[in-house]
């Protein structure tokens, strides 16, 4: 009787596979016995005792195949074992159905019946039809797609109301559902504060601030920027509000939006007042009404909305919106002392649309009238988008700048160019900008930025640079490291977009 063996270096197979191979070899004609074992000392001794041959050299992570039988059968068994061990794995998924390409929501749902959220990111002209298909299949919808008409948005959302489903979007780029960031979103801990926002970066700022303050987010739902339009009626925000009201994991709710039409605002506030949980509202730039509805708390900024929500959750006194302090005045005065008389203007360069909007509102509170491609109330449109005039605060993420190129949060090249352009303008006193981290955002946001900042510092009269980093230390790009690098480069960092805007505006207002 012959014996043969083969050692497969560092080859792991699960126990079931090993048993199957062993069993197959045992059953081969002419084979008296087979052993398929890992090459541990103990196993080598055992197979030697069993007559499979002495002197097999193997290590514990090697796989040893040893067979006894007639010579020809042994050779065939070793070949068969080798084939079984090195066979190209089946990559077709779990079964026949997986081989079928998923070309529709219906097919996807068939294979994953538990799925209840459809993410739609197709050109706007097809998005509405896909959303309606998904809703009819009983799925909630997140529409990344933009360029969907208001009429279509209303049609989709009315269908969602009828089916008691949530539609996030169109043009919804940010959400956190059951702890999973969708689109542009940050890594925040889970907790008891729910957010519904008609603003992507507004949602990011609020959720990041909640995380930074030590609390967490139950759900963060986007509605799309047009949801609070008069003709859409805030249907998604109302649905989101109710969903969070019913959610046992949510204790406090935050609502964020640019100022809605008055009738829509009234409807949302009435609904907020009717639910049993505290609701924090930040309709950017819209102050609190003379009489607050019970249980509704108005916040002065995106970050303040998070601070109020955290205080309510902790049953602590609600903090006032941050006002300029004496130290802020000293800091602004100190920074202003570095400027030449010619340096007079704020130049805000933003990737986050809501950050741009919030900065304009805060600056206007200091009597600063600015130009913008997305002017807030009281501000004026830029004559030439590519060249600033006076105080200018631009949103580089707006369609004006993103036609045919990636959003500046993804590819900051355009933002960096604009920053340098503004730094080279001898009239620029303050360069105000944001850096948004998280999923979807540039993985290396500092790559060119530090070079640009270095070039800005080389100017004869460099502007004061003030920035805010929206993100958390759990994001793919570490906020702490980025903040440190910016500080080392001479950038003044603020804890929130509102703080950055306050500092910039105070500095310029004092010139």
């Amino acid at each position, binding site marked *: 009787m012959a014996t043969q063996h083969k050692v497969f270096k560092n080859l792991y197979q699960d126990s079931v596979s090993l048993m199957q191979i062993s069993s197959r070899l045992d059953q081969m004609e002419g084979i008296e016995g087979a052993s398929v074992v890992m090459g*541990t000392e103990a196993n080598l001794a055992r197979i030697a005792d069993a007559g499979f041959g002495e002197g097999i050299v193997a290590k514990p992570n090697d796989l040893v195949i040893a067979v006894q039988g007639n010579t020809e059968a042994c050779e065939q068994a070793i070949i068969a074992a080798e084939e079984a061990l090195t066979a190209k794995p089946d990559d077709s998924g779990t079964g026949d159905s997986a081989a079928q390409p998923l070309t529709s929501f219906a097919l996807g749902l068939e294979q994953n019946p538990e799925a209840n959220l459809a993410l739609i990111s197709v050109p706007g002209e097809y998005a509405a039809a896909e959303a309606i298909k998904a809703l009819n299949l009983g799925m909630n919808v997140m529409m990344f797609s933009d360029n969907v008409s208001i009429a279509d948005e209303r049609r989709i959302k009315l269908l969602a109301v009828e089916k008691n489903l949530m539609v996030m979007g169109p043009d919804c780029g940010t959400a956190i559902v059951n702890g999973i960031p969708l689109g542009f979103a940050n890594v925040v801990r889970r907790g008891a504060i729910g957010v519904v926002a008609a603003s992507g970066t507004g949602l990011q700022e609020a959720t990041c601030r909640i995380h930074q303050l030590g609390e967490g987010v139950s759900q963060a739902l986007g509605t799309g920027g047009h949801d609070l339009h008069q003709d859409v009626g805030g249907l998604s925000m109302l649905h989101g509000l109710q969903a969070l009201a019913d959610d046992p994991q949510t204790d406090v709710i935050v609502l964020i939006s640019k100022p809605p039409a008055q009738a829509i605002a009234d409807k949302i506030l009435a609904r907020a007042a009717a639910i049993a949980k505290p609701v924090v509202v930040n309709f950017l730039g819209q102050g609190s009404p003379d009489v607050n509805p019970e249980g509704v708390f108005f916040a002065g900024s995106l970050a303040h909305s998070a601070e109020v929500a955290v205080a309510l959750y902790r049953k602590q006194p609600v903090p006032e919106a941050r006002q300029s302090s004496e130290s802020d005045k000293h800091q602004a005065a100190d920074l202003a002392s570095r400027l030449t008389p010619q340096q007079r203007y704020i130049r805000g360069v933003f990737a986050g649309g809501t950050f741009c909007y919030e900065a304009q509102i805060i600056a206007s509170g200091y009597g600063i009238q600015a130009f913008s491609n997305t002017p807030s109330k009281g501000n004026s449109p830029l004559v030439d988008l590519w060249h600033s005039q006076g105080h200018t605060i631009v949103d580089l993420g707006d369609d004006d700048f993103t036609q045919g190129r990636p959003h500046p949060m993804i590819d900051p090249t355009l933002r960096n160019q604009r920053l340098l352009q503004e730094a080279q303008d001898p009239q620029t006193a303050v360069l105000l900008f944001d850096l948004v981290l998280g999923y979807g955002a540039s993985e290396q946001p500092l790559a060119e930025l530090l070079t640009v900042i270095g070039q800005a510092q080389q100017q004869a009269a460099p502007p004061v640079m003030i920035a805010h980093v929206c993100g958390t230390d759990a994001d793919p790009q570490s906020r702490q490291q980025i903040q440190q690098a910016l500080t080392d480069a001479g950038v003044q960092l603020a804890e929130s977009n509102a703080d950055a805007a306050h500092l910039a505006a105070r500095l310029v207002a004092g010139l």
Partner: protein
Amino acid sequence: MIVAHGRGYLCPSQSFDGQVHSVFAKSVNITTSLSEAPWVSVLDSSLPATPTSFQCSLAGLGNPTAKLRVGDGAFMRGGIIRFKPSRMVSVNTLGARSWQPEPELIQLDHPLLHRNLRAVEQALLAHIGNKTGQPISALEDYLKLSGLTVPARLGALPEALFDNLGKGHGLTPAGDDFLLGVLAAAYGLRPLWPQAEQVVQRLAAPGLFNAYQTTSVSAHYLELALAGHFSQPVQRLVFHLLQTADATQVQQALSATLAIGASSGADTSAGIVYAIGQLLPHWI
């Protein structure tokens, strides 16, 4: 992207760099740069949860062995595990819920334990008999069949169990699984039984366990076991065996353990039965 739904209580949350240690049809093992979490597994939901594993449905990935190779880079950033060069494969662990170890034993009901132990032993021997096609009427028959040697008195010489290290079929050899079962039982009993505490102390004594005597996958699980960490089914089996009056729950816990690997679950259960029988000999 695959979304993990469960995570072991020893899984890291912080970023790490690492590499693929081994890939199977339903699991991927990763060695990491973290000293406090040197090993992380991504396991299909059909496999038992371990303290260092993320659980997910790997079905969406097809067969992982077709996409990942031993030695591929693996890293976690922001709660997402990614692989190099297979950048399309990623596991989102952010929403995964952690399971907790079973509570410690607070009282011993001797008649109950006796009843449970007898029932588990009978069911285990029947299972091994069915699988091997050989008559197994006592634990000694199983030990003989597996080629394992055990001390006549566990309390007197627990270290002798290390002689079985690396012995037996499978990626986690039978001798290792048996030892793991002994440790699970001893850890389960230790809060109330000094002899069990002694066995734990002696088996976990520094320098005794030589990881190079067995496969590195098995060594990982033994290192966890020596520190008192076991897969969820093993923890449940010990918990129910020691303190549950409902016979159905005990049988379900045994079935879940027996389902581990080809024979690992049976070997581990045998270790548990042996150790409890040895540690409480005066009334068994």
